[in-house]
C-alpha cells in the first residue's frame, strides 16, 4: 500500500516537473540514413526550420529494424509527444495498430493513407509534378528521345515514371522515353555510380534530357548529364543549383513543408487525408536563376497552362497506383 502511494506520488512529481505544458512533437525517420538526400533529409529540414523559427524542440527517432516501427510510434506516444510524425509508406500497418491505443495523441503519416480519427495522412501527387517536368522535357528535347532513371523499382517510383511519360507524350506524340530502374533493393537509392552508368547508356541511345527519381543515385545521373552536355531533371528538392546550366528543372516534393506544417499545427492538429499536389503547392517544378535560360518561352507557357489545367481538373494525370499499370510507355 505504502509502496503504491510512494510510486503514485513520484509519478505525479515526475509528471509535474518533466511533463511539458505543450507536448513536443516527434519525428520518426524511415529505415535508412537520416541524411539520405531524399525524404528523410527533407523531413529533417522541415523540422529544423520549425525549430529555428519557434525555438521549440522535437524528438527524433531512427530505426534499426522493422519491429522497431511499432515500438517507436508507441514509445513516442507514451512519452507524451504530439504530433508524432512518421515519414514513409512502410509505417502504415504499424500506425493502424498503434493509433487506436492513444486517442489523445495526434499522428501524421507521410506518403500513406491511414484512415483514423487521430491520424493525418499526407500524400503527394507526384504524378502531377512529373507530368509537368515531362512536358517541359518533351518540348526541350531535340532528338525526340528522353530518359528516366528510377531508384528502387517500387510502385511509388513507377508513379513518377508514369506521370513523366504522360507529360512527354502530351508535348510530343511520338517521343521515345527510355526508362530504367537502378535496382531492386534499398541500395538503389544510394548508388551514384550506377546512376551515372544508366544515364550514359540512355545518352548513348540518343536521350538528351534525363529525369531521375532515385535519391542519392540521381546525383550521378545529374553529373553525367552535365558532363555529357545534355540536360538533367532533379527531384524532391530543388536541385537546379547542383549543376547550374545543366539541370533543366526539378520536380519538387515538399516533404519538409508537410513536416513543418504538422509541427506548427501542434498537438491538436486537424486530421484526415491531406493530398498535396500542384493546387496546394506541395508539388511543383523549380524555376530559378539557374535554369531561366534553359526553359524556352514556349515550354514555360505550356507548363503554366498545364499546371492550371491540372488544378482545374481539365487534365487528369493517371496515377499508377490506382490501377497498378500505366496507360502509356
Amino acid at each position: 500500500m505504502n509502496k503504491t502511494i510512494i510510486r503514485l506520488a513520484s509519478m505525479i512529481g515526475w509528471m509535474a516537473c518533466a511533463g511539458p505544458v505543450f507536448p513536443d512533437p516527434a519525428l520518426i525517420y524511415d529505415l535508412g540514413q537520416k541524411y539520405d538526400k531524399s525524404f528523410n533529409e527533407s523531413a529533417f529540414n522541415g523540422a529544423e526550420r520549425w525549430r529555428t523559427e519557434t525555438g521549440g524542440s522535437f524528438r527524433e527517432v531512427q530505426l534499426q529494424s522493422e519491429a522497431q516501427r511499432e515500438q517507436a510510434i508507441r514509445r513516442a506516444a507514451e512519452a507524451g509527444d504530439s504530433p508524432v510524425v512518421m515519414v514513409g509508406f512502410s509505417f502504415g500497418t504499424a500506425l493502424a495498430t498503434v493509433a487506436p491505443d492513444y486517442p489523445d495523441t495526434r499522428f501524421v503519416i507521410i506518403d500513406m493513407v491511414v484512415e483514423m480519427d487521430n491520424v493525418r495522412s499526407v500524400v503527394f501527387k507526384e504524378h502531377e509534378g512529373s507530368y509537368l517536368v515531362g512536358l517541359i522535357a518533351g518540348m526541350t528535347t531535340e532528338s525526340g528521345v528522353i530518359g528516366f532513371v528510377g531508384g528502387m523499382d517500387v510502385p511509388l517510383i513507377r508513379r513518377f515514371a508514369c506521370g513523366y511519360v504522360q507529360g512527354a507524350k502530351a508535348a510530343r506524340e511520338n517521343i521515345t522515353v527510355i526508362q530504367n530502374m537502378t535496382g531492386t533493393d534499398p541500395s538503389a537509392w544510394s548508388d551514384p555510380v550506377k546512376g551515372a552508368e544508366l544515364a550514359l547508356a540512355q545518352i548513348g541511345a540518343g536521350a538528351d534530357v534525363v529525369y531521375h527519381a532515385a535519391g542519392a543515385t540521381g546525383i550521378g545521373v545529374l553529373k553525367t548529364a552535365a558532363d555529357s552536355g545534355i540536360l538533367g531533371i532533379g527531384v524532391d528538392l530543388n536541385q537546379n543549383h547542383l549543376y547550374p546550366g545543366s539541370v533543366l528543372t526539378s520536380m519538387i516534393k515538399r516533404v519538409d513543408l508537410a513536416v513543418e506544417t504538422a509541427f506548427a499545427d501542434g498537438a491538436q492538429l486537424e486530421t484526415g487525408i491531406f493530398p498535396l499536389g500542384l493546387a496546394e503547392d506541395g508539388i511543383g517544378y523549380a524555376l530559378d536563376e539557374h535554369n531561366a535560360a534553359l526553359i524556352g518561352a514556349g515550354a514555360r507557357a505550356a507548363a503554366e497552362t498545364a499546371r492550371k489545367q491540372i488544378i482545374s481538373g481539365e487534365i487528369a494525370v493517371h496515377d499508377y497506383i490506382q490501377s497498378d499499370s500505366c496507360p502509356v510507355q
Partner: protein
Amino acid sequence: MTSLPRWADTALVPLFSLALSLMVAGLMVLWIGENPFHALGIMLKGAVGTAYGWGYTLYYATNFIFTGLAVAVAIHAGLFNIGAEGQATVGGLGAALVCLSLEWPHWSLALPAAVCGAALFGAAWAAVPAYLQARHGSHIVITTIMFNIIASALLVYLLVNVLRAPGQIALETASFPPGAHLPTAHEILGWMGIGFPKSPPLNISLLLALAGCMLVWVLIWRTRLGYEIRTFGFNESAAIYAGISPFRIVMTTLLISGGLAGLMAINTVMGEAERLLNNAVQGAGFVGIAVALMGRSHPVGILLASVLFGILYQGGAELEFHMPAIDRDMVIFIQALVILFVGALDNMVRFPAERLLAFIARTR
C-alpha cells in the same frame, strides 16, 4: 601453447572481452559528453528492467538463436555459411506462402505447416551454393553472400509484381488470416494467469528456438551424422579416409543450416508482422555469425550470445530514445565494438588469460 580450462574458455574470456568492449564504448560515450554509467543504466533498464523490455529483448534473441544455430551447424563441418540473411529472407517467403494459401482454422495447424514451408525454402536457398561447393569447390563464402543479394532482389520483385495487395503502395503482402496468428507472450502467459504487456512482439517462436537449440545439440554431439559432420570439419582427409562422403556431408550440413536460418521467418513474418515485408530480416543473418562465433558454436553459448545481442538491440533503441546525443549510428558503433572484441579480438584476451592461468598454476 597451453589451453584454457573449460570454465575459463566458455565464461571468463567472453565476459572479459565484453567488459573491455563496454569500457571502450563507455569512453566513446564520455567523449561525446554523456555519462557512460547513466547510458549503461538506460540500456540495461530498457532491455531487462521491465517485462516490456524483456518482451523485445527476447524477440530479437529468438531471431539470433535461429541464425546463430544456422551458422554454427555449418561451422562444425568447417563451412562458413554467411548466407543466413538470404536463407531467412526466402524462408519468409515460404512461411508467407503457407500462411496465405489457406484459411487456417487454428494456429496449431498453421505453425507446423509454416515451419515446414520456412525450413524448406531456407534449405532450398542454401542448396545451390551447397551443390556448387560440394561438386565444384566453388567457395560458399562467395556464393552464399551472392545469394543474399539475389534473395533480396527476388523478394522485392515478388512483392512489387506478384504478392502485393492491389492498389497498395507499401511493399507487403495482405495480412495473414486470423487462424495463422501465433500466440504472443501476452496471450500465453495470460493463460497461466501471469500479466505481460501486450505490445512486445515476443511469441511462441521462442519455444521453437529453444527446441532448435536442443535438437542441434543432439544432432551434433549425439548422432552419427553429427559425428561425421564434426570429423569432416576437423580434418577432411581423415573423414574421407574413414569412408565419410564429403559430398553428402556438405550438402546435408548446408541444407540443415539453411533450414534453420529459414525458421527465423516464423518469428518475424508469422509471429510479429503477420504479413510478408520487404525488410523482415534486416541484418539478423549477419548478427547470427557474431552470435555463433561468440557462442563457440555451442547451443548454450548461442542462446546466451543471442540474449546479449537482444539486449544490445533493445537497450540500444531505448538509449537512442532517451539520450538525444546518442543517435542510431552511435548505437551501431557500440554493437560493433562488442562484436569486434568478443568475436574478432578473442585472442587479445585469450593469450594473456592463458599466460596468467599458467603462471598461477606454476606458483602453486
